């Protein structure tokens, strides 16, 4: 049996192990809420992560429905990666922590395979999936960086847009005596 077929049969287990590992990266009070409240609007973060993980796994196992992504499976998985990483890019994660959830998929796959091995069952070579996960992780880094860049661009644009500055230049503003421009002292 090939690895894909093997894990297709055990998709539920893989997904649940993976999901547990991902939610464990959040504070405990948070994990409870993220995992249990199934409401796309009341718990959007949990919902998007859940959807995203399932979508990525579908892609990995070649089960992504073409109709979900207008025939472009690759774009479909990027969308799921983006949904999760866009959230993690504004949470308290470093770059490696933000992307680590993709490597956790390897562990989930291995745990499931190991369990079968212990039962004395044949287990196929899973390296082909490892390589696919690595490729996803690399793409994940790109997406994470793009999200952070997006944040900085927005920040810069906000600062520029402060018409206040424009008016200052035009000498139309009278400031509070002795006051420096807002936030300038703290900028790095």
């Amino acid at each position: 049996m090939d690895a894909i077929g093997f894990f297709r049969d055990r998709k539920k287990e893989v997904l649940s192990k993976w999901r547990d590992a991902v939610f464990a990266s959040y504070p405990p009070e948070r994990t409870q809420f993220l995992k249990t409240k199934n409401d796309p609007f009341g718990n959007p973060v949990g919902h998007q992560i859940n959807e995203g993980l399932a979508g990525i796994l579908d892609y990995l196992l070649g089960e992504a429905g073409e109709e979900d992504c207008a025939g472009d499976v690759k774009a479909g998985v990027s969308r799921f990666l983006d949904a999760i990483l866009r959230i993690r890019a504004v949470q308290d994660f470093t770059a490696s922590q933000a992307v680590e959830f993709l490597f956790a998929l390897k562990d989930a796959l291995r745990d499931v395979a190991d369990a079968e091995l212990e039962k004395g069952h044949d287990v196929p070579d899973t390296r082909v999936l490892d390589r696919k996960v690595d490729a996803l992780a690399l793409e994940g880094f790109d997406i994470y960086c793009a999200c952070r860049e997006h944040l900085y661009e927005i920040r810069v644009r906000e600062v520029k847009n402060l018409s206040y500055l424009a008016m200052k230049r035009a000498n139309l503003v009278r400031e509070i005596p002795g006051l420096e421009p807002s936030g300038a002292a703290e900028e790095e």
Partner: protein
Amino acid sequence: MADEVPKTSEMVKIDHAPPSTGWMDTPVVIRKGIYSYPAKKPTLDYLSMPFGREWSPLDADWKLPPNWLDILLEGMRERIDRFRSFRLFMDICVRCGACADKCHYFIGTGDPKNMPVLRAELLRSVYRKEFTLAGKLMGKMVGARQMTAEVLKEWWYYFFQCSECRRCSVFCPYGIDTAEITIIGRELLNLLGLNIDWIAQPAANCFRTGNHLGIQPHAFKDMLDFFVDDTENITGVRVNPTYNRKGAEILFVTPSGDVFADPGTYTAMGYLILFHYLESLGFDVTWSTYASEGGNFGFFTSHEMMKRLNAKMYAEAKRLKVKWILGGECGHMWRVIHQYMDTMNGPADHLETPVSPITGTRFTNAATTKMVHITEFTADLIRNGKLKLDKSRNDNLNVTFHDSCNPARGMGLLDEPRYVIQNVCNTFHEMPESTIREQTFCCGSGSGLNAGENLELRFRGGMPRANAVKHVHEKHGVNMLACVCAIDRAVLPPLMDYWVPGVGVTGVHELVGNALILPGEKKRTTDLRGEDLPGVEEED
């Protein structure tokens, strides 16, 4: 499988789940991207607020005055006596948890101290220790704790992560309003000079010049003159607003964001077009270059500061001898008017109960404040068939409506903006029920948290709102988010840019300005943003 290959989790050894200590024992970690810069000495001095100084939230020493604890506890004592609501909210919470997952900051950050119940508990624990017998005797067992400099830091960090939006109060069986607790919390912090710059500076500017940005009267007029030119280019009609005109019937006050920041400026053009249209029907309005701000950052500082800034609008109304005030699309201006104005500065006996000069409708809901919301006013005009509208001029827009927290939860303005939008636009879709009207999700940047340095906090807090927009964007093709708040118009565009690219932000009266047919106007080819109207290209 090869056991010798270590697992990723073993290799990377990343443990970002924090230790599960109780919340009281988990020290506060102040993070960049979440906090806003502290208020500066000159601004605080200008507002006669105490203890202005240079300090950094990241330093161990916040340079507190030596007797800070006495000041703080005395401040609490005073407020417990003064505000029944405060004492009640301190006493009656049963920690049922109904509010816990209702705060957009908790939903977006996952930080347990952003659960409304815990946010309130930060203050309540000290209240118990200092002001209740059980707390004095049994301490931690009954959730009481000593006030320390560390606790103070925690207050500062978390009371400036609450946008005072009141969403949590909707779900509390006792009606506990955590926003009110935050308001008191911030007021206490202000006794020690611990405001944030983004609040203190606009408040000081407003106190000095009349608006948040410190724009002087001639510049204010210059800006509006630009809009007059732009409006003429687009409609062919020259509108003529008046300024500081004594004896006008109505004074118009709107947030200065409408005059100085896109896309609010298009809403300002909408007001100008509407006022011009109504002129021949007997509408007599003036703008003021002194009461040139509807927003009230005093509200985010202290009750006294809120009163001070609110009073300016009424003083100007008195000086100009107008009969009543028409208020623009602002958020917290309306909460101040609706919930506090009357006790603080009212009743405004020098004014009259507002009556629409065009329809004769008497706005008895504004009988004491004498101030009418522009969407109430416009909705009444539409209902009485007074406006000639061409909805198709908004046909490039597929609109949804974000209930801004203050008009929605703070004053119950839910249907008027929707009524107006649906009369000036052909395509409108509501976001899911649990994210609108009374249950609306905050933009994530309210109550003075719309600074730049705390962008991550804003984007996490705004995520639930953006998520609902994304839903209607994907499902119905919504491409325009309408709102009636200037802070929204400033902060939702970047929020959309990050979470839902392809959705713009507009004020309701920009849509009105597009649809309203001015007598004698030329054939319009663009909307108020200068973008081609639907169908124009094909005709060319």
